[in-house]
């Protein structure tokens, strides 16, 4: 019972990371109708942005682990990733906007390979130790909680789930209650009509990439707090899992991406804990195939009619 609860907590923390990354996939798909396969590598860049800025930024708060410093590292990594995301869109995808979507898709794979190999060249292929920006420890529960006092919840896990929730709420407000958000939704509904109504296509696309990449950057730092070993290829697997999460939730649908991420995280933890760890990855990708076969629109997505 306690072991099961513990696995749910583990899954929830890992799922939050997937949820954050999945949002970027889903937002870009929403407005541009293509999968940005370089997105997983932006997550990797987020971790490295934290790695390189942390020593300076933590220095401002005395150098040791501190929440203020960690928040600053998080924000700076998000900003750096936002800029990188905008650059990728501007340099690699925008010139191809009039081309078939397949061209853009293949370019995205190319960008992904570029970031991975370039990362190995610039950062080195060996895993690096992420600096300790928060003193991660298990939270002590009072013995009066009985059996529940043996549960282990770490500060890192609470932070990951908490930050994810906050970021999701902020995103929701932006999308539903601002003019930019309205423009984004209009674009995703009908790009032609939206631009005829005076929506600035380029600006909105840049904004979408900025937000999505910032979320991935946040995921990169939040992961590294719990798993302080980062390498230039860490984005591949996490990116693929998040992609499955986005499809599971219904690609193009933001709450769906968050839900999909959590479900994939829980599925992984339970498979590892109770079935066989070697089945973890195959099962996640089996979910992708099953969703595409039986409910291509995902859990929360609306079935889309093919326009002729």
């Amino acid at each position: 019972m306690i072991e099961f609860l513990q696995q749910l907590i583990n899954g929830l923390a890992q799922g939050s990371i997937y949820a954050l990354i999945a949002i970027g996939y889903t937002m870009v798909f929403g407005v541009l109708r293509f999968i940005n396969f370089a997105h997983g590598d932006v997550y990797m860049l987020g971790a490295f942005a934290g790695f390189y800025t942390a020593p300076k930024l933590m220095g401002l708060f005395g150098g040791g682990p501190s929440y203020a410093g960690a928040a600053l590292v998080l924000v700076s990594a998000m900003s750096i990733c936002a800029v990188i995301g905008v650059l990728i869109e501007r340099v690699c995808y925008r010139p191809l906007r009039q081309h078939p979507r397949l061209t853009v898709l293949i370019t995205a794979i190319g960008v992904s390979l570029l970031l991975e190999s370039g990362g190995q060249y610039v950062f080195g292929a060996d895993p690096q130790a992420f600096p300790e920006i928060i003193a991660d420890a298990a939270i002590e529960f009072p013995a009066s909680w009985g059996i529940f006092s043996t549960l282990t919840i770490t500060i890192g896990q609470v932070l990951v789930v908490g930050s994810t929730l906050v970021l999701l709420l902020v995103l929701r407000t932006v999308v539903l209650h601002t003019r930019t958000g309205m423009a984004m939704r209009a674009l995703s509904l009908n790009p032609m009509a939206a631009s005829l109504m005076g929506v600035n296509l380029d600006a909105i696309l840049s904004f979408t990439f900025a937000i999505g990449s910032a979320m991935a950057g946040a995921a990169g730092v939040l992961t590294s707090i719990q798993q302080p070993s980062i390498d230039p290829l860490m984005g591949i697997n996490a990116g693929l899992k998040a992609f499955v999460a986005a499809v599971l939730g219904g690609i193009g649908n933001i709450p769906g991406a968050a839900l999909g991420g959590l479900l994939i995280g829980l599925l992984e933890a339970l498979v590892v804990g109770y079935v066989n760890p070697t089945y973890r990855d195959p099962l996640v990708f089996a979910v992708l195939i099953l969703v595409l076969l039986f409910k291509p629109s995902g859990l929360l997505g609306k079935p889309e009619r093919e326009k002729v």
Partner: protein
Amino acid sequence: MQTPQILRVLALAASVSIPVFSAMAEGEIPVGEFASLTGASASFGQSSHKGTELAVEQINAAGGVLGKKIRLITEDDQSQAGQPATIVRKLISQDKVVAILGEVASSKSLEAAPICQQNKIPMISPASTNPKVTEVGDYIFRVCFIDPFQGTVMSKFARGKGWKKIAVLTDVKQDYSVGLAEFFVKDILANGGEIVREQKYSTGDKDFKPQLTSIKAAQPDAIFVPGYYGEVSLIAKQAKLLGIKVPLLGGDGWVGDSLLKVAGKSLDGSFFSSHFSASDKAEKVQNFVSKFKAKYGEVPDDMAALGYDSAMILADAMRRAGTTESAALRDAIAGTKGFDAVTGMITLDANRNASKSAVILSIGNGGFEFVESVQP
């Protein structure tokens, strides 16, 4: 544009052909070495090369062997598959080496071994622990122990400590890890111990909390994690966070720069087996350590010690053979018995594997501490 390009090609051709002209001086014994001096496994290759180089220097300073000096010809395989075959062919056909030393990584040794076997040139690998390497043929040797032995070393140690309930966490993507786990489990079960949980992960995983949660629920006395340092450091860190207080046990895959950098204090009180410890008080070891420090300004690691031993064993065999003729040299290497090396007493068995002791190290105070050596 045309002329400079031709010049460059000529210059390149000239530089390539220089070694051919600088033919072997009389009175020198050419010995080839191939190692990953650059690329992904460069830290292993650099270490073993330094050890080998130091050994050859010492042998020559003491008058060489058979009245001649050993000339070490080192080639870099750039940590790339395909390179070992090319450069070992070059060493044999062009440099006419009488023996080959190398490599650390089993996959690279496996590439070079068939070529050495075909040309009947003895090859001694310093640190390839995969059993398949010496199975290539009767000219292939190694000076390190093999994976099955290492698994048993740790299980003996665990039994000696009185740990009865053991959990195992294996990296299913590494033959090395699976091999160690297999022999560890066999020995524990054969001696009345209990494997309370077997969990698995894959190279590159970062989140081990699900596996560790399941292991924690089984309440083991110790956890055997025969993986590589990259994952082990994260496993240790997360185990600590989940409130697992029992020691972790592992093998020589734990030795790596980033192990303690990532794991911090969370590995304190854990143990692993390895080839060599610079803090071993034996005179032979301390002698080697101080010479190595004097030459390179660093403490030698396992790979350096094994590289050193591979060259020393070769020189010893040459002395006993009285010649560098390949069949006689092969027989002499195969006859190595009770050679007092820095990584322990080495006897080469019928399968050309070193039968020798392993050392057990403990982790604490930000470093490794020698605990004991375990005889085969």
